[in-house]
């Protein structure tokens, strides 16, 4: 059964934590909004699954991880990469398909990887990254390391076999994993009520013999609190936890332009946006006397400068050479 987490919400935040979470979230939001506009304007190729609205999940979980902990991500993966510490320059360069990108222009939006920061890759197959995280956790067990692996996935992915197989295997072997389900209410365009009987995905944890926790995915401090507990448990040999973060994406499944057909009630979108994660932490920070409006404004400004620099860098970076097409297929 899902475990209430209200008590953990009482953990007093510090100024350092508030500003850290804020910076992670602002960096995600500005990256995503900028990338969306660049694709919309035709300046950048490909298509984008934007993370805007869900920032509190990536920020909260990643602030509970160490640099050497591992994550796997999804088609909506920019936020995870940024919150784990990925840099804007190689991210924008990858989206532009340039050699200076994280994947040298081979992967694009859906395959950002940064092994140096434990980001084992975004994954364009729904649920595809979950078994890989089992392997990352197994490597920790095998080597006797105390690192933890965290697969991120959506509500839709919990209906795919890879999720069930992975959750069961992680549980039966007590692997150091924290499974983070970002329940944004929709599997592409299909609402949760039409793709599963359950209201709470955390309830699925019971069938694997692991704890399931529900958390407000618009509250980065709350996400951080449940993640800290689950990560500590995993790191100390207590096995995996399933965290369900209830959240919402502001933009469409793909792209920034909006909806081809009305599949979400505008009142629903508005209700979630009224609980915006970034505005929430700014309010909490000021009300609790931990930070000032100027502190937050500075983070927005610094992020903006970083975005401008990175886009410029990406645009001016060299294109890949088609003569190198066959490199890295496999080594002979």
């Amino acid at each position, binding site marked *: 059964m899902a475990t209430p987490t209200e008590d953990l919400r009482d953990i007093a935040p510090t100024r350092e934590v508030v500003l850290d979470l804020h910076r992670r979230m602002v960096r995600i939001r500005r990256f995503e909004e900028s990338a969306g506009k660049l694709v919309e304007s035709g300046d950048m190729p490909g298509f984008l699954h934007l993370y805007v609205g869900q920032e509190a999940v990536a920020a909260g979980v990643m602030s509970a991880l160490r640099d050497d902990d591992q994550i796997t991500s999804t088609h909506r993966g920019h936020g995870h990469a940024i919150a784990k510490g990925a840099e804007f320059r190689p991210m924008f360069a990858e989206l532009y398909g340039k050699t200076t990108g994280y*994947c040298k222009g081979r992967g694009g939006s859906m395959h950002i990887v940064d092994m140096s920061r434990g980001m084992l*890759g975004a994954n364009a197959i729904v649920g595809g990254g979950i078994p*890989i995280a089992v392997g*990352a956790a*197994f*490597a920790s067990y*095998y080597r006797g390391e105390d690192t933890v692996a965290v697969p991120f996935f959506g509500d839709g992915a919990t209906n795919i076999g890879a999720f069930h197989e992975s959750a069961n*295997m992680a549980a039966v072997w007590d692997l150091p994993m924290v499974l983070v389900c970002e329940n944004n209410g929709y599997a592409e365009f299909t609402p949760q009520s039409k793709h599963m009987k359950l209201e709470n995905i955390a309830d699925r944890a019971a069938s694997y013999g692991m704890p399931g926790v529900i958390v407000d995915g618009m509250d980065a401090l709350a996400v951080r609190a449940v993640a800290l507990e689950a990560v500590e448990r995993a790191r100390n040999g207590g096995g995996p936890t399933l965290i369900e973060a209830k959240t919402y994406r502001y933009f469409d499944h793909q792209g920034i332009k909006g909806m081809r057909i009305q599949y979400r009630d505008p009142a629903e979108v508005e209700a979630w946006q009224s609980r915006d994660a970034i505005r929430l932490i700014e309010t909490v920070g000021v009300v609790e006397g931990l930070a000032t409006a100027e502190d937050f404004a500075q983070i927005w400004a610094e992020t903006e400068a970083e975005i401008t620099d990175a886009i410029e860098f990406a645009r001016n970076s060299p294109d890949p050479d088609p003569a190198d097409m066959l490199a890295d*297929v496999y080594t002979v």
Partner: protein
Amino acid sequence: MSRQLTYVKAFNEGMHQIMAEDPDVFLIGEDVAGYGGVFHMFDGLLTEFGPRRVKDTPISEQAIIGLGVGAAARGLRPVCDLMFMDFIGVAMDQIFNQAAKMKYMFGGAVSMPLTITTAGGAGMSAAAQHSQSLEAWLAHVPGLKVAMPASPYDAKGLIVSAVRDDNPVIVVLNKKMLGMKGEVPEELYSVPLGVANVVTEGSDVTIVAIGRMVIEATKAAASLAEQGISVEVIDPRCVQPLDIGTITDSVRKTNRVLIVHEAVEFGGIGAEISSQIQEDAFDYLDAPVARLAAPFAPVPYAPILENAYVPDAARIEASVRRLLERR
């Protein structure tokens, strides 16, 4: 007298020796530890290397391969067993979307030293879901290597190369060859991936045979030799990478070629080999490239049907005779 081992014992010895050589190698799969694998491919490994390195898994093929992908991305050398090749469909996303593509789509940032072992092939009345030869599926996906040992010597040498390789390699053993004996050196050795074996040299016709068909082709060649027909049998050993050079060199010498595999003929690896031969050695051909393979049907159960389904030495011999009659 050189030492003789069965195909499965040779493979098993290779596993023991490669695991002893490299502490980063581990084995997971269904019933690979306590039971030693349903074909006894992994006998004794649990006892020698312990439960950390040899693990039985739930029946979860996606998670088995996915675990291998994640562990390989972190630098370990997993051996993931899929028991029957037919089960590969359950795990296919992790094989062809994840393992095969990671190195390339991540711009070389990740190596994928993953080995997948499985057993394919018909001839045991195991029917449609336990008898297939699906190597052409795998060979079609850039990033995967596919080895199909056709002798005890190669069963050991190819598993050693596969585990040492920095790419995903699928080693397809043949169920019907498990008890076949052959010469196998005791020491650790490797057979390189992508280098064909000229099994018998000849001058009149080339047979390119895949997997167990190498045995049938060799029998046919011996019979034809008694009738004064000189056959060169080539075992590519791997269908990816494919050693087309050794094949076309042979065709330039014999001017006639038959390709034999027990996978379905349509879209099988024989089609690719045939195409490459005519592109590279068209002027040397005295007859069209011939194929002998399974008909376009699932593998049937009844022995009389299955025997008619899988090529054998007699039909290979007949095909060679027809090929030689072409002027």
